[in-house]
């Protein structure tokens, strides 16, 4: 089936034409060579709106091959609209095998999360990035931010963190938390929660970041040092929850809050749906799916 799809409906393999893919690959190579540096590329119009992952899709389209196994997640979940439609897109245009299992995938395209299961060498993580410029909200001039990156003038990033502490008493930036890459470039890690920042540090997998609207690609080669910015007396830390996952009892995963009714009841469950299911299949349970003693008797 895959061979027949190569030219189906006039589309090339993985939607983009080969010339475009080559252009994107050149940008990716440059990005990998200079970890954290934002490489401009001639972003194409994709059959989806900006903000839905056009950058990530272009990067994936440029690197995907017939033997790849693709996993797409959105906020950690395999079954949300964005993830499902991008997975279908590549199943249709590239006829690649898709999966929901993190460890089986060779390419994982992600929006806003890094999977809980540790990634391995040989895997590639593709991030969808809305705004690649970490300095954007403090310094709107692009000419100036480029100069600041070139001259490593990153004091302004700490002004933002200072402002956080003075307003909230702690560093209140919880996502898109700026990080220093390889001791050189400050990078916006896309809107992943700061919970995931430590996972980027020395990760064995290759990490690619694509911003479609802003037309920038940047990358973290395997085993790159990524240090989240902080103050000496307000060190970087990650979110913690009072409860464990209500479905699988995990204590160390990123939890989503789900409102159950209008009486203030809520539960916390893993944001990484595959990780949670895997644990449940392995027999782990949380507070929500343990059968209470009296229901057992009635059954």
């Amino acid at each position: 089936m895959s061979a027949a799809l190569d030219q189906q409906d006039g589309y090339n393999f993985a939607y983009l034409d080969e010339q475009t893919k080559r252009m994107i690959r050149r940008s990716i190579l440059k990005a990998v060579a200079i970890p954290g540096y934002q490489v401009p590329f001639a972003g194409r119009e994709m059959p989806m709106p900006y903000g839905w992952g056009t950058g990530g899709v272009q990067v994936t389209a440029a690197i995907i091959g017939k033997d790849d196994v693709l996993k797409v997640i959105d906020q950690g979940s395999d079954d949300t609209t964005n993830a499902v439609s991008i997975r279908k897109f590549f199943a249709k245009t590239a006829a690649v095998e898709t999966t929901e299992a993190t460890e089986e995938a060779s390419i994982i395209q992600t929006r806003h999360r890094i999977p809980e299961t540790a990634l391995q060498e040989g895997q590639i993580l593709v991030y969808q990035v809305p705004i690649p410029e970490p300095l954007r909200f403090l310094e709107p001039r692009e000419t100036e931010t480029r100069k600041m990156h070139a001259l490593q003038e990153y004091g302004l990033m700490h002004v933002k963190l200072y402002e956080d502490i003075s307003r909230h008493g702690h560093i209140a930036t919880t996502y898109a938390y700026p990080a220093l890459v390889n001791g050189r470039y400050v990078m916006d890690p896309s809107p992943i929660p700061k919970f995931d920042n430590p996972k980027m540090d020395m990760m064995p997998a290759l990490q690619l970041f694509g911003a479609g609207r802003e037309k920038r690609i940047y990358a973290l080669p395997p085993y790159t040092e990524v240090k989240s910015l902080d103050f000496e007396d307000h060190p970087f830390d990650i979110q913690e929850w009072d409860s464990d996952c209500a479905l699988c009892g995990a204590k160390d995963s990123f939890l989503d809050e789900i409102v159950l009714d209008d009486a203030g009841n809520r539960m916390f469950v893993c944001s990484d749906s595959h990780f949670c299911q895997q644990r449940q299949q392995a027999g782990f349970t949380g507070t929500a799916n343990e059968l209470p003693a009296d229901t057992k008797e009635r059954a």
Partner: protein
Amino acid sequence: MLSQKETLLSVNNVSVLYGERVGCQNVSFDLWPGEVLGIVGESGSGKSTLLNSISARIQPTSGSVTYNTRVDGQRDLYTEMNEPERRLLMRTDLAYVHQNPRDGLRMNVSAGANIGERLMAIGERHYGNIRNNAEQWLDKIEIDQNRLDDLPTTFSGGMQQRLQIARNLVTRPRLVFMDEPTGGLDVSVQARLLDLLRGLVRDLGLSVVIVTHDLAVARLLSHRLMVMQNGQVVESGLTDQVLDDPQHPYSQLLVSSILQT
């Protein structure tokens, strides 16, 4: 401390041309440590252009600007320094106070962050220290410490101007450039600001180049005065000398145009 025998800034035949038009032409002067130099002149006479070119902001078309750096001694700002060095100098040893505080402040972050920005830019990474420093500076500029976390937009014009001055002086620069620091403020606020500036200049041993069109400001603050017209320096000398006994027709006109009370 610097030897009193060495100039802090020496400007040699500086001309700035905007295409055919002349910004300023053949200006030369030396500035000594602890000295306050006033530049007066009518609007459009090249005061601000001169200020920009001697403060590492606009490269002059010809001539040289030599600054006595702390480490390497006398260096030409444009030919012997590269851009990173120049930018580092601009946010440590030099300071620039804009006429409109909105140009010099970051309006969307608190007063404390504004004061702390230069410290963070030179590598201070201890929140408590930065905050203490900012509190001390608020004291010095006579703003209540409980305004530390307020946005500059909630400050009055005079307070904003004082905040801008604090933000610039926090890294203990040696040379401060001021472009009409009292412009747009009412007279009583002006007087207070001038008082403050005079105190800071004396206490910190600052050298200042101050551009103004207000001769009262010049008389109060500056030791020496340069009068500019059409991009040229037409007269220079000790402030009292120039103001009490102006030689050049334009200086005479300028002095005589002040309302006598």
